[in-house]
């Protein structure tokens, strides 16, 4: 199982972060060529990310790159660089419509064909507007390259004529829509960044909340947030113990030709077994148990 709990944003113009981000072991390193890079540094950051993606330190790390919009002077140049360099995922900024995804897909296909890249570049659509949220269901289903959709909360609340709060009620509708769209399309759902890096309690509370909603993970802006997030996403020891018992009971039931079995008075059927397998995969990925 590929875990995607943490996507660490790394400004493409921040050399130190570009060189060291892998050390912090996020599930995905997300190089940014868009908002965090000044216009005067777009060219230099693009080359930095182009080379970083090909460096051996990123060979065993999932990489994504947030490129500039295709209708900007930088979008196609970014795309050419990162697809050539072998990024796993391209993150689309400000995805409002299905056409936004399909246009990006077409541009990537042309580059892949030109350079003979056989591994398909995946797409992650960032939904950052009311229009994008309304179209989320269609966006999530429009391309087999789409591995997930993500909420971009800062631009979204601006579009909604409101602002972010700690309790997050302004994001309730968007989070629900994005999560349901992702689950219906069987792709990942990612929550937005928590920008106040000094507020560790607030961050943990938000992580627990979005985990409870069903999000696969969050975009992060600071490496210090990674371990907090991973710990919060790890299953409890009680859940792991119960899941081990469920798998054992299911194995016995299968040997006896039974479809359903009882464990401590609780019925264990297919959905419970699937949930137990998922918990154990998470426990393995979190280092709690061996495979």
């Amino acid at each position, binding site marked *: 199982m590929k875990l995607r709990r943490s996507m660490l944003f790394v400004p493409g113009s921040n050399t130190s972060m570009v060189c060291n981000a892998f050390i912090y072991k996020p599930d995905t390193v997300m190089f940014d060529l868009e908002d965090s890079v000044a216009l005067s540094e777009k*060219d230099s950051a693009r080359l930095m990310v182009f080379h970083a993606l090909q460096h051996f330190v990123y060979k065993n790390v999932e990489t994504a790159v947030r490129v500039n919009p295709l209708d900007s002077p930088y979008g196609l140049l970014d795309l050419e660089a990162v697809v050539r360099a072998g990024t796993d995922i391209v993150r689309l900024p400000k995805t409002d419509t299905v056409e936004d995804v399909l246009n990006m897909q077409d541009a990537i296909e042309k580059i892949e064909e030109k350079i003979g890249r056989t591994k398909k570049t995946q797409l992650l659509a960032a939904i950052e507007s009311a229009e994008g949220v309304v179209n989320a269901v269609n966006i999530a289903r429009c391309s087999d390259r789409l591995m997930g959709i993500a909420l971009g909360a800062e631009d979204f609340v601006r579009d909604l004529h409101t602002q972010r709060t700690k309790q997050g009620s302004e994001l309730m509708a968007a989070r629900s829509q994005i999560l349901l769209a992702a689950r219906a399309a069987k792709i990942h759902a990612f929550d937005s960044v928590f920008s106040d890096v000094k507020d560790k309690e607030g961050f943990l509370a938000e992580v627990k909340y979005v985990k409870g909603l069903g999000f696969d993970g969050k975009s992060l802006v600071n490496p210090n947030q990674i371990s907090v997030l991973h710990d919060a996403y790890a299953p409890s020891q009680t859940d792991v113990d119960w899941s081990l018992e469920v798998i054992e009971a299911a194995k016995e039931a299968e040997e006896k030709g039974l479809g359903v079995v009882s464990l401590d008075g609780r019925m264990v059927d297919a959905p419970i077994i699937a949930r137990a397998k998922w918990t154990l995969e998470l426990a393995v990925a979190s280092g709690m148990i061996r495979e």
Partner: protein
Amino acid sequence: MNILKKSAYAGTLESSDAYIHVSPIQENEIKLILESSVEEIYGEAIEELVVQTLKEMKINNILVKVQDKGALDFVIKARLQAAILRACESNEPVWEELS
């Protein structure tokens, strides 16, 4: 063929980065001035990297000043290429020359 039209630079003097300044010169040669915090150990390797990068970009008449603050090899390469493309006023890189 890349033709340098002006002087240009890329990079910063921050730790792990390199500040690279390039200028066109009349002579058909590569002049390199290197200042590095790790020159004793990596000076030769940095020089080789610069010369190889210039060769890939088909640049033969250039003065390169490198102020290295302990940058990894790919950082120096990226900064040098960015400085050259700026000096060439090129917005359309030939990616095959940059790999």
